[in-house]
């Protein structure tokens, strides 16, 4: 039994070593995004409401021109602390297609809280046509759909650089240190002071990148706060229960050992 445990330890050590090696091999694909500190990190992490609301502003005024957020509804914005009136106003500022009406015609109407975020383009082809043939992906799940999550979004926003000498850029492409292959069809979306934050925060590129990444993480995992809150309770319960079960097991087995 003891020998078995020792060998299991050795097997695990090999596993860990291999894992580290695989990590090193993967880094070649595009710069590894530097780890940022996020309000939603860790077992007790929550979304910084102010950052997420600023991030919404960045998305709404900048990214929404090209990127849809089709899995999120305006009503969901209460999850990052927007009040009902604010949500109504945000939705009403958008045009959403509806219909057919009793004349049989499709029409546009102002958005309502129950609507999903309005899409910037009618379809993918229209999106490509407006973007030199490149498709701006829907951002609803983007932090779950990329290795590095929020760190990657942040890095991508601040990662635009002059191409290193000798790198041949393709027509209409930008050099980005963190995009796989380094050539991205999205022009640098953020410039200093592009949005005006109501809370007086200075809209640097890094600040906007941080805020929009917070917002997009919320958009991808709106259940995270509830999940972690419940998780802490469940784990505490299980740990106490299991400790008691262990004591009971010891007790029941005393006459066998």
């Amino acid at each position: 039994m003891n020998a078995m445990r020792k060998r299991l330890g050795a097997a695990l050590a090999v596993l860990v070593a291999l894992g580290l090696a695989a990590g090193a091999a993967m880094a070649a694909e595009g710069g590894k995004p530097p780890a940022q500190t996020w309000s939603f990190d860790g077992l007790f992490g929550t979304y910084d409401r102010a950052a997420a609301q600023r991030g919404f502003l960045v998305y709404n005024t900048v990214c929404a021109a090209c990127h849809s957020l089709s899995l999120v509804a305006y009503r969901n914005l209460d999850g990052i602390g927007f009040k009902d009136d604010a949500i109504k106003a945000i939705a009403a500022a958008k045009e959403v297609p509806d219909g057919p009406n009793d004349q049989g015609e499709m029409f546009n109407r102002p958005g309502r809280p129950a609507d999903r975020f309005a899409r910037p383009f009618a379809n993918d082809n229209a999106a490509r046509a407006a973007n030199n043939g490149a498709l701006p992906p829907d951002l609803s799940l983007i932090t779950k759909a990329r290795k590095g999550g929020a760190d990657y979004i942040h890095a991508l926003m601040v990662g635009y650089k002059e191409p290193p000498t000798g790198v041949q850029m393709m027509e209409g492409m930008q050099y980005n240190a963190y995009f796989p292959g380094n050539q991205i069809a999205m022009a640098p979306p953020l410039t200093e002071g592009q949005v005006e934050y109501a809370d007086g925060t200075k809209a640097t590129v890094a600040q906007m990148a941080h805020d929009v990444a917070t917002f997009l993480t919320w958009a991808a995992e709106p259940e995270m706060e509830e999940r972690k809150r419940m998780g802490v309770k469940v784990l505490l319960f299980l740990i106490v229960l299991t400790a008691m079960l262990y004591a009971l097991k010891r007790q029941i087995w005393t006459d066998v050992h």
Partner: protein
Amino acid sequence: MAAKSYSNPIVKWIEYRLPIFSFLDHELNEYPTPRNLNYWWNFGSLAGIILVIMIATGIVLAMSYMPHVNYAFESVERIMRDVNYGWLLRYIHSNGGSAFFIVVYIHLFRGMYYGSYKAPRELLWIIGVVILLAMMATAFMGYVLPWGQMSFWAATVITNLFSAVPLVGESIVTWLWGGFSVDNPTLNRFYSLHYLLPFVIFALVFVHLWALHVHKSNNPTGVDIKGPQDTIPFHPYYTIKDTFGLGAFMIVFMFFVFFAPNFFGEPDNYIKANPLVTPAHIVPEWYFLPYYAILRAITFDIWFIPAKLIGVAAMFGSILILLFLPWLDRSKVRSATFRPIYKQVFWVFVVDCIILGWVGANTPDADFHGVKMLWIGQAATFYYFFHIVILIPLISVLETPRALPDSISQAVTPGGKS
């Protein structure tokens, strides 16, 4: 089954017509179990509980899931966002798949270490291998359901393997797909089978337990039960031990569900399936990586047999060969504890399987300190079969086992050695 008398008139009435109470009492309560089972024996009951968890969460997920290429991805997101506690159900189900395989793989290696496949438990072992195959089919088809990029491309790659079958391969693939590519008919039939197979597994588990209860559990000494001094009743001893094990397992499982729910997943599966865009790396779920490495290790034709066919045969063969283990291992001694040489190579084999998994996660032309991943995969694949086909039979006849204890009770009571 000795007739037991019950005082409750309803129980009595039922018992007379269907002796279910004495059956349960016999199989779960007084059922004699070796007194020396260690914690490696917890994983069987854990696997059974996970199966129940998977069926329970799956049935509820199915109430909101839509198996259609246009809605599947969105319906899963609806479960995540709009269905009450849908995220919890889905994360339990998707992490449960991984937990199931971890537990079953440990269960299986336990069997290999302690020789649990040997007479008279050959059928028990074989049913276990069949359960593993059914689990793999279930998990593979389940992974296709959320209709992400990895769902689609894994389905495409795996179903395409059947095209390696000579002459009729292409027809088989078209037949599996229900068309000329992975598409709506494929998704529909996978859903149907994904719903069906867990119940088949349930039935197989029942037969597995039936066979188990005929000759009872093996134990760490591998020595047969000789008499009542070697056993203790299943209840309360193993019910409490299994319940404690379940608690410990749940702590780990729930940690992943609540705090790292996508740890075992691929980011690409949060991108909706797109037949026009091939992901940079198509990788299966982690529990299939060793087989994937074996599949890709075969890059050479042998005579007229194309490499692809050999690769597919090697991949399926790597599991099917386990069916013959009871006859490949000729040693009468079950437990590796008393087999000094087998014990060593057993752990080499475990490491080999882990290496295969690691190779499966990397592209074949990736480079590990100057060594091509493909070569590591080929060496590890060779060793996998070498272990089972050559080393096991050879060691089983050449090795001199250590002296066995006379009985379980002699081995575990203070007078005897353990």
